[in-house]
């Protein structure tokens, strides 16, 4: 079923390309509308909810006591306030690294091992499904990351520096593509991530189901593939640079409505 949907949407995308006058954004908005009742992300959301409630790991516990910043077990509203500072780990954490901490603390799973697992395998698939579930519970809410703690402000500041950091064979930084309004790579519209780029755009659209490869991607994988195309070396899963960049984008997106989990090219 999933495959059929992907093929159908891919065909729609091709039609979109043929009518070159229509912008990619308009095209994608159309597919979203058509898929409102059938976004394959729903499957991951359902799987994530099951994982949230299921007793797993050496401690045979569920994640229902996991504190995502709104108190133990509160899922709704958490997504639009992450990354934030957590006193129990002493760190600013994004959704995915926080989920790993909960799996470690509550279920007794090996967080370092999960972070080392490649995307799309084993526990990483579970993280993606869980992130999809948590994000979906905040659909329609507006981003409002806390900046009250000194570590949260520090995360924003070093995230901003990472955003502008040029390096590699091509001298690219995040800002090379995402620093101003209204630019494209090929036909792909590029959100300006130095400010609120609008409802459901950029940070407010991930996790997303990617039609082009039939995969569900969380923000960690989205950033990872940005760095790949930037010709940078490989960022560790949940590494400080990924969390700091998420803080920078999330704070900048203040007031943007979340549409995650969304559907993407």
């Amino acid at each position, binding site marked *: 079923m999933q495959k059929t949907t992907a093929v159908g949407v891919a065909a729609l995308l091709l039609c979109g390309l043929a009518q*070159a006058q229509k912008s990619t954004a308009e095209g994608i908005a159309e597919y979203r509308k058509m898929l409102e009742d059938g976004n394959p992300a729903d499957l991951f959301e359902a799987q994530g909810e099951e994982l949230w409630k299921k007793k797993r790991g050496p401690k045979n516990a569920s994640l229902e006591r996991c504190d995502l910043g709104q108190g133990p077990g509160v899922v709704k509203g958490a997504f639009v306030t992450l990354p934030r500072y957590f006193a129990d780990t002493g760190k600013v954490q994004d959704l995915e690294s926080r989920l790993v901490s909960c799996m470690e603390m509550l279920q007794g799973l090996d967080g370092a091992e999960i972070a080392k697992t490649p995307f799309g395998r084993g526990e990483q698939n579970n993280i993606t499904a869980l992130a999809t579930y948590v994000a979906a519970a905040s659909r329609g809410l507006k981003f409002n990351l806390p900046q009250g703690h000194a570590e949260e402000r520090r995360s924003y500041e070093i995230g901003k*520096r990472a955003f502008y950091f040029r390096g*590699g064979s*091509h001298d690219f930084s995040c800002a090379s*593509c995402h620093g101003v309004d209204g630019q494209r790579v090929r036909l792909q519209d590029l959100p300006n991530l130095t400010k609120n780029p609008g409802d459901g755009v950029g940070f407010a659209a991930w996790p997303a189901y990617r039609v082009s490869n039939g995969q569900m991607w969380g923000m960690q994988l989205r950033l990872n593939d940005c760095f*790949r195309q930037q010709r*940078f*070396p490989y960022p560790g899963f949940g*590494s400080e640079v990924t969390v700091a960049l998420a803080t920078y984008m999330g704070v900048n997106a203040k007031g943007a409505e979340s549409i995650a989990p969304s559907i993407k090219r």
Partner: protein
Amino acid sequence: MHTTRFVFAASAAALLLAGCASAPTPAELDAQARQMMKASFRDQGIAKTDRLNQDLGQQACSTDKPPSDEVASQIMSQALSAMKWPTGGQYIGDWREGEKLAQSGRGMTWSDPSDAAKDNGGNCYNCHQIDKKEVSYGTIGPSLWNYGKLRGVNDVAAPVSAPIVQYTWGKLWNSKAYAACSNMPRFGHMKVLDEQQIRHLMALLLDPKSPVNQ
């Protein structure tokens, strides 16, 4: 008892001071960000962590503010003096090969098997309109449609064409020679493309027979 109270007050004051001192200065944040970049990445395939070792231009162009005029001219003059002009004064190759290179966005990522120039593309259409027949083009760079024609290049070998031919080579080899913080990669300088490949791109842009100049 008095002493105890004094000690308590003193440590509270120390804590407060420490609290103030812990708000990092911009320079401290710069250092912390550099440390974070070092700690967050690892080698993967051909993409090693030494790609994060910034040269002068990369470092000076890594904020939302442009560098000082002095630093900018230093970057440009370094780029110009390191420029490698084509062997034998041969600037122009085959525009057909140039079009293939302009279309290819491949190369230098950790999922590419080799970092040899022969395996890389120019990524040109990602950022520029070039031949109008290609509707899938990016807009980060200016349109290059009619690049040679608009600049009056009727014969690439004519002495009157020499300044624009040389400038275009320089722009492709090391764009930072003309704009310190240009968004454009330094294709020749960073060994992304070799001399022959750049000749082909030159032909795509400048050859009067190239579809770009029709």
